[in-house]
């Protein structure tokens, strides 16, 4: 998300073929070409680079009404990084980050703490109690504070030494997921190091166009991870992992002293169920009767095995039946805070997802993205929605 001008040449690679229409959840929901990736990029270019289109609230909306799911970039036959260009357009649009001083302050506080603390926590809990927000109540302490330190293998000689990076949601809102991750890893012979000093991965700052904050986050985390000298770096969050593994090395300026370190760390970073399905379980799961379906989050595919890992792993639990929904990788509409900012579009995307999910008659939906979890759970007659690692942990109880 450096200067949008950096992408000038890549923008010219757009053949205007319109194939991105087939992949963009926002276009699919609205059926307006204004919201197709081709047009979003053209509008950004005309307005922010060439000054042939006047800046307006509508231009900002077009650039903001994007989930940053990355399907356009992944599917573009010309290889145009449309999603990265949209994020760069946000930085150009909001040199100090999106929103007023209060929103920016809250984002900074949230990123620096990797979760909700103090007044922010109280406000979130009040909203939750009043039913204004779909989030659960937040405990007083963050996971990384409670569990900082080294956790030895509970199953013989350690097979690997891992740093566990709990994403902001697992660290603050869904600490059940972080607890489960720690438990399953140690039960399977992995030594786990929880580092208190790490901060948010940077994705929320990236989405808000706040370049300064995002680089701060990346630098701090790369430093901590490089110092930890682990065999692997595991996270339960699909977005944090994608961001640390794929985005961080690209976003740090090439002359940044940490850029090389970020590149070296990347091959060590895995989502926890992906990692476990690759190295195999050594603690046999107990019986658990459940019909389960897996919603693949947008920020998947940072390894070739990611998209199938939870299916492979959970199928090893006796009594668990994995049922695949139609288009398991279709977006649910959450997109970080997209569902709050653009509820109308998000709702349309969610309805399609829920119809597909309903057809599976699953009692449980698993997904590695906390935004998906919250948003899917908020739908009427949603199945119980949780991280796949929770189900595995439950089978060990």
């Amino acid at each position, binding site marked *: 998300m450096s200067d949008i001008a950096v992408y000038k040449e890549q923008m010219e690679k757009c*053949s*205007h073929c319109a194939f991105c*229409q087939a992949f963009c959840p926002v276009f699919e929901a609205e*059926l*307006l*070409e*204004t919201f197709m990736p081709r047009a979003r990029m053209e509008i950004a270019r005309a307005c922010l680079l060439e000054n042939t289109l006047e800046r307006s609230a509508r231009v900002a909306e077009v650039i903001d009404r994007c989930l940053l799911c990355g399907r356009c970039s992944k599917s573009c036959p010309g290889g145009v990084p449309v999603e990265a260009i949209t994020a760069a357009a946000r930085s150009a649009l909001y040199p100090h980050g999106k929103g007023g001083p209060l929103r920016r302050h809250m984002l900074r506080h949230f990123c620096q703490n990797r979760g909700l603390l103090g007044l922010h926590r109280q406000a979130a809990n009040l909203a939750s109690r009043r039913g204004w927000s779909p989030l659960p109540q937040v405990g007083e302490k963050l996971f990384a504070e409670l569990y900082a330190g080294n956790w030895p293998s509970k199953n013989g000689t350690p097979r690997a030494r891992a740093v566990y990076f709990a994403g902001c949601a697992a660290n603050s809102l869904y600490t059940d997921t972080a607890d489960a991750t720690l438990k399953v890893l140690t039960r399977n012979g992995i030594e786990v190091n929880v580092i208190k000093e790490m901060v948010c991965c940077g994705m929320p700052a990236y989405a808000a166009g706040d370049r300064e904050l995002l680089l701060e986050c990346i630098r701090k985390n790369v430093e901590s991870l490089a110092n930890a000298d682990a065999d692997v770096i595991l996270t339960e969050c699909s977005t944090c992992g994608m961001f640390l593994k794929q985005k961080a090395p690209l976003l740090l300026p090439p002359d940044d002293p940490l850029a090389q370190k970020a590149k070296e760390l990347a091959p060590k970073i895995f989502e926890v169920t992906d990692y476990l399905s690759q190295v195999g379980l050594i603690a046999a799961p107990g019986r658990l009767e459940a019909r389960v379906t897996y919603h693949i989050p947008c920020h998947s595919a940072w390894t070739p095995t990611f998209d199938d890992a939870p299916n492979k792993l959970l199928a090893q639990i006796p009594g668990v039946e994995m049922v695949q929904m139609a288009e398991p990788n279709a977006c649910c509409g959450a997109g970080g805070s997209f569902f709050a900012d653009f509820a109308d579009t998000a709702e349309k995307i969610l309805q399609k997802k829920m119809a597909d999910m309903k057809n599976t008659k699953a009692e449980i939906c698993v997904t590695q993205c906390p935004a998906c979890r919250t948003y899917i759970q908020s739908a009427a007659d949603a199945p119980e929605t949780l991280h796949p690692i929770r189900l595995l942990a439950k089978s060990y109880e």
Partner: protein
Amino acid sequence: MAGGLGRDLEEITGAGSVLVNPADLYAYRSDATYDYATGKPDAVVLPQSTEQVAAILRYASARGIFVTPRGAGSGLSGGCTPIFGGIVVDLKRMNRILGVNPGNMTATVEAGVVLDKFKAAIGPMGLFYPPDPQSASVCTIGGNVATRAGGPRGVKYGTTPHYVLGLTAVLADGTIIRPGSLCVKQSVGYDITHLFAGSEGTLGIITQVHLRLLPKPKASATAVVTCNSAEQAASVVSAIISAGTVPAMLEFLTAMAVMVMNSIISPPLAGDGQAYLLMEIDGSPEQVAADLKNLSALCKDMGVMDVRVIEDQKEAASYWKARASLYPFILTMAKKMVIEDVTVPRNQLPEFVKRLGELSARLGILIGLGGHAGDGNMHPSLLFSEVNEQTREKAEQAVEQIVRMGLALGGTISGEHGIGLHKSAFVEWELGREQIALMKRIKAAFDPDGIMNPGKIWPYEAGREGQEA
């Protein structure tokens, strides 16, 4: 909503279906040919019924406002670009499949139905709709009819018009007509249905289409033929056609095309051929096996380097997916590309390929070939590493010469993309003045004020075709 036009249109379609903001209008300037994004609409409207389309056209014709119908905006001729402004009628929200009738092997769809979505809906019923423009993931059936869209299956199954039995269309003054029917044979007066096929939005707006379907072939197989020259590949195509064994798809690919496609083909095609033929054979399992045997023998007799049948379904699918993306793919290796659509009789393919090679050398332009050779539709693409006045001029020169070359061989200037703006200067070379004059008289009967998609198919003549721009 600013301005009277937007407000007036909202009265017809309701709020949320009319766009007048400059950012929105900017999004509707171009199709897949960016060169023709020279104008922008004054408003975009997204009707949801034939009646709304009729009301929009009544409104526009009463005021002499230009109207440009639009499907996905994925066309390759500039056909849906609103170069003179006016109203863009975007049909993407008319996207219902109105009925599928297996007992009659027909279906009725709204114009905005996306082709792949239609195929996905009828596939599980054992039904098959062959037309396969390579933009099938996004293009709309209304747009397919309006441009006579084809695709690789043209060689065996023909193109979109061959599957159109009837339609609902709105004339420029808002009159709704329903030419044709769900009958598979019809002989009642002029064939108005097929007058709309290829009309590119110049006669009216297609809102619904009756389509003819086929039973899904029980088996299919994919094979790759490696050839030592482009001329050899062209000769093999001509020989296959005259042998009477017609593949469902028969694609011509240069070594360069295969090189860019290899990013999707899995495992990549490793070969030292100068040109390749990619074919699919379909039918009953016995027929497929027999055809494969015959075609392999024929290819080997002609001295090709290799014939390989791709047994693995996933691998075969990767070839066809790569083929579908070939056009945007090419832009990973060139800065600019002009894609040509000249089509020649199949027996003339070897000569056409030879002359293209000579032209490429003479003008110093890289010409990529990746065409539907089986139906003579070669899609030579002109590739440029720089975009400037000189390359633009060269491209114009080359297009003109390719068009003349195709016509000299008894070909046609467009096989499946349509004329739009890209070919309007050449139409007279193929049709002659008399036919164009006749077409203009026909248009006047459908669109007396000349409001429908001005400037397409033939150059705009102010005063003779409605109002000044």
